[in-house]
């Protein structure tokens, strides 16, 4: 019996797919095809879901995320390459050097389209090169080129240099100096957009891989091309409606003032939930101070990006998360300092949320006399910039902070673990868990760690459907629903900024998948798919040593209350959190230790991942 050829694998793939991943060893330069059976594609869709399946199969159990054996997967999706708005996204998936568990991060634009059109549903990188290299993939296959001249450049500079060297048609995802130095929260970026969370850039840096360059070589066939075009037209029309107005008109930074008014804006390392100087950093204020330019990803009709001129004429892509993390969280209110901090994070290639979270923790340590770095004070913009520089170059205090807040707190001790605001090692995003208690659960139980893109339960908290200060059964249901929806959107892939346009999301998503793949997929099937993907992530973490205590929040949130302007006190007790987690486990078919029953595994077709 002969092994199937690449052409053979592609031939039998469902529409929207190639049925094969490329596993590239950057140490040897050898590329091996990995068959992706139709059942796997239907069961995990693509993006984060398919990436999870690949990690189960390709990552050795217990592998050091920075070791050569650790795989790093760029995963595409069935929708990418179609005209469906916001579909030009890709997932990067690996075992995180920050959390030691699964991480998947999404980025957007032309790399996704060109990457898919290399003829693979995923590119998995293994091994490690002895010298800096760039991986090229196109119709001629894969090859490695020297990247010595690129080493030390920012991702944007490396991209520009490679585009010039390689010529038209190449799309590039690269790391900055922080990735090269294996800062544990380094990013991978393409065209200024980062696969940001969990330290994927460090995984790439550990392989001495500066960049991956892809060029389209083939087309992606849809099952019903005409139907896809009609659906794309309808979805585009919806994308101009009120559900996306916030993203179009002010961008995600519109959250800042609203969250401040709602006492959900984490400030000074989560010691407070409002920031008096928030108006100075608001989208409303910044857009009046200086001209803002709107932009968007390829194949997107929303155009959420708002780019501000920073110091020295730099263009700074501004989002709520980078402003929250480098502004209020560090007590910094100077817009120039915050924009410059954001620009430096981009240049180094580090995750702004983890950077801000780790620096804010260090600022509090200095305040409490636990770290001897008098220069690092809340509210000091210059100190913030110095801290980022030291992290990006792993100099001075930066050598410690580049490890992330969990490891740094373990090193410093003195009770600083209680105010190191992370879950599983991943620093918290800009959502205060005490005043958003469905989100508190979402943050605690998520496989990736404290994260707002894999659990958007804050939306239920802010809907008025339940009391956001009194966690209970409805909060649990909301957290599960949010996690499930994210699992599908991150796997199909569609941008979550589109989520508000769907009235019956699972049915509407199934309809899109039917057009692209020809499958008779239904909304109910997608609900099971969502549960499968969420559980598959948990299973990966379980095999890597996850324990129940990892589904928890830092001590600060459970021992310190917040006083609200309304006169109410926001308290999240350990008992409330434990009860919500218990209920979450029951609803997910897990035992009280967070392990799925064999019946549940069987129901969801997950037995193969544990056998």
């Amino acid at each position, binding site marked *: 019996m002969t092994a199937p050829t690449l052409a053979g694998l592609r031939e039998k793939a469902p529409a929207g797919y190639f049925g094969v991943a490329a596993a590239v060893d950057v140490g040897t330069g050898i590329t091996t095809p990995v068959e992706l059976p139709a059942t796997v594609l239907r069961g995990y869709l693509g993006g984060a879901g398919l990436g999870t399946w690949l990690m189960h199969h390709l990552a050795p159990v217990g592998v050091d995320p920075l070791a050569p054996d650790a795989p790093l997967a760029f995963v595409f999706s069935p929708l990418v390459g179609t005209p469906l708005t916001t579909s030009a996204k890709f997932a990067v998936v690996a075992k995180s050097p920050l959390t030691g568990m699964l991480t998947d991060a999404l980025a957007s634009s032309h790399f996704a389209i060109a990457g898919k059109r290399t003829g693979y549903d995923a590119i998995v990188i293994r091994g490690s090169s002895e010298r800096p290299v760039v991986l090229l993939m196109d119709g001629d296959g894969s090859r490695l080129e020297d990247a010595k001249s690129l080493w030390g450049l920012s991702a944007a500079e490396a991209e520009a240099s490679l585009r010039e060297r390689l010529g038209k048609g190449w799309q590039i995802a690269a790391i900055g100096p922080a990735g090269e130095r294996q800062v544990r929260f380094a990013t991978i970026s393409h065209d200024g957009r980062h696969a940001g969370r969990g330290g994927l850039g460090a995984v790439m840096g550990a392989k001495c891989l500066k960049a991956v360059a892809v060029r389209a070589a083939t087309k992606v066939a849809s099952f019903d091309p005409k139907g896809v075009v009609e659906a794309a037209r309808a979805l585009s029309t919806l994308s101009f409606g009120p559900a996306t107005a916030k993203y179009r008109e002010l961008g*995600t930074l519109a959250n800042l003032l609203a969250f401040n*008014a709602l006492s959900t804006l984490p400030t000074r390392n989560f010691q407070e939930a409002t920031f008096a100087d928030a108006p100075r950093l608001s989208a*409303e204020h910044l857009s009046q101070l200086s001209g803002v330019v709107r932009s968007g990803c390829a194949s997107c009709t929303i155009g959420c990006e708002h780019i501000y001129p920073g110091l020295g004429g730099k263009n700074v892509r501004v989002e709520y998360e980078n402003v929250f993390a480098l502004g209020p969280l560090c007590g910094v209110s100077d817009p120039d300092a915050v924009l410059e901090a954001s620009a430096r994070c981009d240049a180094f290639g580090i995750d702004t949320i983890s950077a801000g979270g780790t620096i804010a923790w260090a600022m509090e340590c200095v305040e409490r006399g636990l770290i001897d770095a008098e220069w690092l004070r809340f509210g000091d913009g210059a100190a913030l910039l110095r801290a980022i520089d030291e992290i990006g170059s792993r100099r001075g205090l930066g050598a410690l902070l580049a490890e992330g807040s969990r490891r740094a707190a373990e090193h410093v001790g003195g009770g600083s673990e209680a105010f190191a605001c992370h879950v599983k090692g991943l620093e918290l995003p800009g959502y205060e868990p005490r005043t958003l208690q469905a989100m508190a659960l979402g943050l605690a139980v998520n496989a990736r760690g404290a994260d707002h893109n894999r659990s958007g339960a804050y939306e239920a908290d802010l809907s008025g459907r339940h009391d956001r200060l009194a966690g209970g059964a409805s909060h649990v249901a909301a957290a599960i629903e949010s996690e499930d929806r994210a699992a599908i959107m991150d796997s199909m892939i569609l941008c979550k900024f589109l*989520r508000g346009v769907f009235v019956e999301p699972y049915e509407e998503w199934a309809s899109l998948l039917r057009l692209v793949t020809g499958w008779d997929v239904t909304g109910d099937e997608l609900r099971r798919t969502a549960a499968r993907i969420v559980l598959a992530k948990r299973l990966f973490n379980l095999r890597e040593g996850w324990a129940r205590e990892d589904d928890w929040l830092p001590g600060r949130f459970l021992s310190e209350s917040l006083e609200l302007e309304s006169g109410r006190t926001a308290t999240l007790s350990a008992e409330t959190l434990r009860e919500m987690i218990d209920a979450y486990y029951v609803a997910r078919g897990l035992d009280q230790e967070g392990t799925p029953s064999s019946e549940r595994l069987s129901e969801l077709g997950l037995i193969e991942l544990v056998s």
Partner: protein
Amino acid sequence: MGSPKALLEWHGSTLVRRVAGIVARGVDGPVVLVRAPGQALGCLPDSFDVLDDVEEGKGPLGGLCVGLEALADRGEIAYVSSTDAPLLHPAFVRRVVGEVSEEIDACVPYVRGFRQPLAAAYRVSLAPLVADLLAADRLRPSFLLEACRWSDLDDVALLADPDVARFDPGLDSVTNLNNQADYEAARAGPAPEVQVECFGVLRAPGRRGRVTIHAATLGSAADAVGVPLNPHVVAALNGDQISRDPEEPLAQGDVVSFVSAEAGG
């Protein structure tokens, strides 16, 4: 008065919707409405429990007994109000509820020269005692006070609370509408003065910060600033409670923040 008091119009809502909503804001817990069997109360949020009075003609203690029994295991202290108190303020409710302590089972304000048993707070555990009084046909609220540890709060004590002094300086929270003239006089007064702020895309061009308006409900406030209360909009009252119910009652001094329901980033 021509129609049931509970359903009298109040700035686009009804008395019962307003009073129940204000109590809900004041107590930070469940709300139970006790009605005469079959009494219509109009459209109310699902979060309110509506129960029938077990036996009519038992006066306020009958309703109190049903309400306290319904709250067993769901709270320790209940604020009790009649439905004809549309000027009730959440700060008043909080102050009265806060007076009940380890040593005190009930707090009955003494305002405007009268004891106010239907603008008062009672420990939920008094339910059996109230039931005993009903069984003994001792139907006056004063019989309950004789049998429990209670305190009063007079005008001075109530106004010592900075929030009560600021938002209800005339202690209008205890105003009852006993007849048509009372109703018309109260209804002719201005709606509460509130501040409204719109965020993000909801903010009108050129408008910054808070504007002061008169509005008795969230819907009126939204109309006043031209914000549609559709699924893409939510409002926060005083940076806390989130709602998009147009009949959500507003009280003097409230700050209403209208924000996009698409909250994330």
